C-alpha cells in the first residue's frame, strides 16, 4: 500500500501529489519518465504483433482464445497502470475504476447466462 499523507492544504499527498506542486507529476514524484513510456509502448506494439501472429498459426487454434485473452489483459493492465498512472496514483482511483470494471464484468456474465441458460422456444 502506498503511503498517503495529508498536508496543511487538505489535499492528500501520496504518490502523484506533492504540496506546492500538486499534480505536476513526473518521475521525481513516482511517475515513470518518458523512457519508461516508450518502453511500455514498444512492449505493447510487440504484444499486438504477437496477437496477430498467433491468429494465423493453425497449430495454436485450440489454445487461441486463452492466449489472446492473456495478451489482451496484459495490454489492458499496462495501459491502465502506466499510461493512466493507476500504478502510481492514489489507490482510491484504482478502487473507483475496479468497481466499474467489476460491475461491467457482472453485466457481461449476467447477459451471457441469460442466453446460455434459456432453453425455451423463442420462435415456436
Amino acid at each position, binding site marked *: 500500500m502506498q503511503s*498517503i499523507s*495529508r*498536508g*496543511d*492544504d*487538505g*489535499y*492528500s499527498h501520496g504518490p502523484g*501529489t506533492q*504540496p*506546492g*506542486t*500538486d*499534480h*505536476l*507529476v*513526473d518521475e521525481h514524484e513516482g511517475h515513470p*519518465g*518518458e523512457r519508461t*513510456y*516508450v518502453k*511500455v*509502448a514498444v512492449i*505493447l*506494439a510487440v504484444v*499486438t504483433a504477437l*496477437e*496477430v501472429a498467433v*491468429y494465423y498459426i493453425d497449430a495454436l*487454434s485450440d489454445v*487461441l*482464445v486463452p492466449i*489472446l*485473452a492473456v*495478451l*489482451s489483459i496484459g*495490454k*489492458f493492465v499496462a*495501459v*491502465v497502470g*502506466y*499510461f*493512466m498512472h493507476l500504478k502510481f496514483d*492514489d489507490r*482510491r*482511483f484504482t478502487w*473507483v*475504476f475496479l*468497481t*466499474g*470494471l467489476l*460491475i*461491467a*464484468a457482472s*453485466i*457481461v456474465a449476467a*447477459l*451471457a447466462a441469460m442466453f446460455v441458460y434459456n432453453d425455451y422456444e*423463442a*420462435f415456436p
Partner: protein
Amino acid sequence: MATTAHDVEHAGGIGAGTAHGHAEHPPTSTGLDHRKLLMWAFLASDCMFFASLIATYVIYRNHSQQLGLGPFPNEVLDIPYTSISAAVLLFSSLTMVLALAAIQRNDVRGLRVWLGATSVLGIIFLGGQYFEFSEFYQVEGLSLRSNMFGASFFTLTGLHGTHVAIGVIWLLSLLFVSLRGGISQKDSLNVEIAGLYWHFVDIVWIVIFTLVYLIPYDEGEVTEGAEEAMVRLWQAVPFV
C-alpha cells in the same frame, strides 16, 4: 516549514498569485482532486456501457451463421488492415502521455507537438474506420439491417468511433487553447484528464480488437427453420 506555492495560493485566494490549477476550489473532503475523481467515476460507468455492447456482440457473434444470413464476419473482417488501426491507436496513447509529461515539466512546445500528433493519429484511426465501414456497406453489402452481425458490429464499433471523435475534438480544443497561451505547467491536470479519456478509448479498442476481430467465428451451421423464424420476428417489428 518552508512556504510553498500551495500555501501562497490558499492564503491569497482566487486570482492572488495563483500557483496551480486548484486555485478556484477549496481542499476536498477526500483529499483527492474532484475533477480527476469525477473522470475516473465516468470511466468506470463507461466500462458498464461498453460491457453491455460487448456482451450483446459476443452473444450474437455467431447468430448470422446459424441463420445462414450473410454477409458473415469471417468473410468481411480484414485482420491486417485493422491491426494497423489498432497500432495507430496504441501509438496515440504514447504520444498522449508524452504530451502530459511535456506540460508537467513546463515544455509548452512539446505539449503542442504531442497533442497535435495524438490528434492526427486519432483522425487517421477515424479515417480508417470510415473506410472500413464504407467497404462493408458498399462492397460487402453489410448494414445495420443485414443481420445481427451487422447490427451489433456497427453499433459497437460505431459507438467506440464516436468516443474517439469526441476525444479528438477535446484534444484539438486543448491544442487551440495552448496555442493561445492558455495552458502552462499549472494546468497540467486539464491535460491529464483528457489523457485519461484518451487512454480509456485505447483500452476499449484492445478488448474490441480481440473479441471482434481476432477470436475466430463459427464456420456456420444453419439451424433448421431458423430463417423462417427470423422473418416472422422481422415482420413482428412495427416500424420495419
